[in-house]
């Protein structure tokens, strides 16, 4: 059990009268890649907010390397080694691409990758001096992944990393993640099934705040129940 990075046990969260999540369990081992999928409103983003400690679960626990992280300030969570890519591209528009990455590195306890290497990883070497606000949508998404990498995470949480991307960009992003797999753990929340298929990893399917299925992606993909949910039959 020593290689367990993130341990989510029986997590539930209630907003007033709405039970947004209920009885969720998730174990992420070191250097493991896993996906969380589900239709709109399934609670994917809420679950990710719980994983990053932004939302405190009303029941259950979230442990990172054995410590409860619920309710810790954001910057403390980042310094534990949990990086997050937000759903809406959240880069710093009035800073250059290079400065965006620098700010990310400065936040890390021990940044290792130099800015030049990060620029190469996210294919933005020729845009280093461009203001981040002027980048194309897909490039902003990549820059944000680059910023998440800059803090040398143990765990990278991606909230819909391919939202708004073209199919080519989506596949390029999947390739980028597969290259990074093995350096740290990655949890990606997605509803683009092509992207998850390209990653082909352990997958948790959420539906109405509960676990519907979990297992390797090819099992999930052939599951009749999952298909029904995605097609809106249930």
């Amino acid at each position: 059990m020593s290689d367990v990075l993130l341990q989510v046990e029986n997590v539930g969260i209630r907003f007033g009268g709405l039970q947004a999540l209920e009885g969720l369990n998730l174990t992420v081992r070191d250097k493991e890649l896993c996906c969380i999928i589900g239709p709109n409103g399934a609670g994917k983003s809420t679950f990710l907010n719980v994983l990053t400690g932004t939302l405190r679960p009303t029941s259950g626990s979230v442990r990172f390397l054995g410590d409860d992280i619920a309710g810790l300030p954001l910057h403390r969570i980042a310094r534990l080694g949990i990086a997050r890519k937000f759903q809406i591209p959240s880069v710093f528009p009035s800073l250059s691409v290079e400065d965006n990455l620098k700010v990310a590195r400065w936040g890390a306890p021990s940044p290792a990758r130099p800015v030049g290497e990060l620029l190469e990883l996210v294919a933005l070497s020729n845009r280093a001096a461009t203001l981040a606000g002027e980048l194309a949508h897909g490039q902003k998404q990549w820059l944000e992944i680059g910023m998440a990498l800059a803090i040398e995470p143990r765990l990278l949480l991606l909230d819909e990393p391919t939202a708004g991307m073209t199919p080519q960009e989506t596949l390029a992003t999947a390739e980028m993640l597969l290259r990074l797999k093995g350096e740290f753990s990655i949890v990606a929340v997605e509803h683009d099934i092509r992207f998850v298929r390209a990653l082909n990893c352990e997958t948790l399917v959420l539906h109405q705040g509960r676990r519907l299925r979990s297992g390797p992606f090819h099992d999930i993909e052939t599951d009749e129940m999952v298909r029904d949910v995605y097609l809106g039959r249930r």
Partner: protein
Amino acid sequence: MIARDRNWLLIFAVCAALAVLYPLFADGYQLTVIRDALIFGLFAASLDFFWGRTGILCFGHAAFFGIGGYIMALITLNDAIPFGSLLGIMGAVAGAAFIAAIIGYFLFFGGIRGSYFTIVTLAMGVICQQAAVSWSSVTGGDSGLIGIPPIEFDLGGTHVDLSQDLPSYIFVAAIVAVVVLALWSISRGRWGTVLTAIQDNEVRAAALGHNAPLRLLVTFVVSAAIAGLAGALYVCMAGLVAPDLSGLLLSTEVIVWVAVGGRGTLLGPVLGAIFIQRAQQTISSFNPSLWPLLLGCVFVIIVFVLPDGILSIYARLKSLLKGRRRAQ
């Protein structure tokens, strides 16, 4: 070095040269006018250091100017305290910083930002002015405290006496130059870049491991400390301290100086302070009630039309011309 930094240093050098040459042409009275304007310029730079980099407007910055002034006055007017001038300056800086730290702690760590911060600091300024009026046994009430001695101290064997016009002008100009240069080098480096990032998206900056509230607090405290220094210098030069020095009017004026001079430039606010005070004297000589009216109008116009200050006209024209050339 980037072109922007080079331009800034160039303008700074020109201003410094003008400040050095000015005593050759000016008489004693003109020197004291510029000297006092420079002190207010330092005050404006202190506000700009916070407002310009964080985007959060403090509408009660005169509170720190006033606190610095009163502490300086109380220490130097007390004959029992030795080295009054030096201790007074240190006390003024520390006092303003201390108050800013307490208020800022609750605001920044309580998640108060944007216009809410502005409103709370507005109230803080009013409270300070009221305290200065009401606590008359210490502050002298409405009439304030008079007879504050000029700054004098011994520095490495030489006795520095700032009761004369020229020495006091040189002293103030040197302090303004050093402080503005120091603030500039802080705000263009790592500290300033992270502040810009926090201004853009605080949650994102925090998710990258930056302690945003702490960084904002430290910036606010430094800004208040320099406002306190400016207040301390001013009361020694003017010889008196009054509740107006922490009042709403001064808080508004300093915002106008910064807005006119160009927020985020540090040097612009100093020039803005000098030019607007010059305009104030000229206009008030026609009709004293005209000035507040004009000040208000200028404030509204700047906020709506030129949010980046008068200096931004040049940059805007340039980008306009560039755009037209590209269109052709």
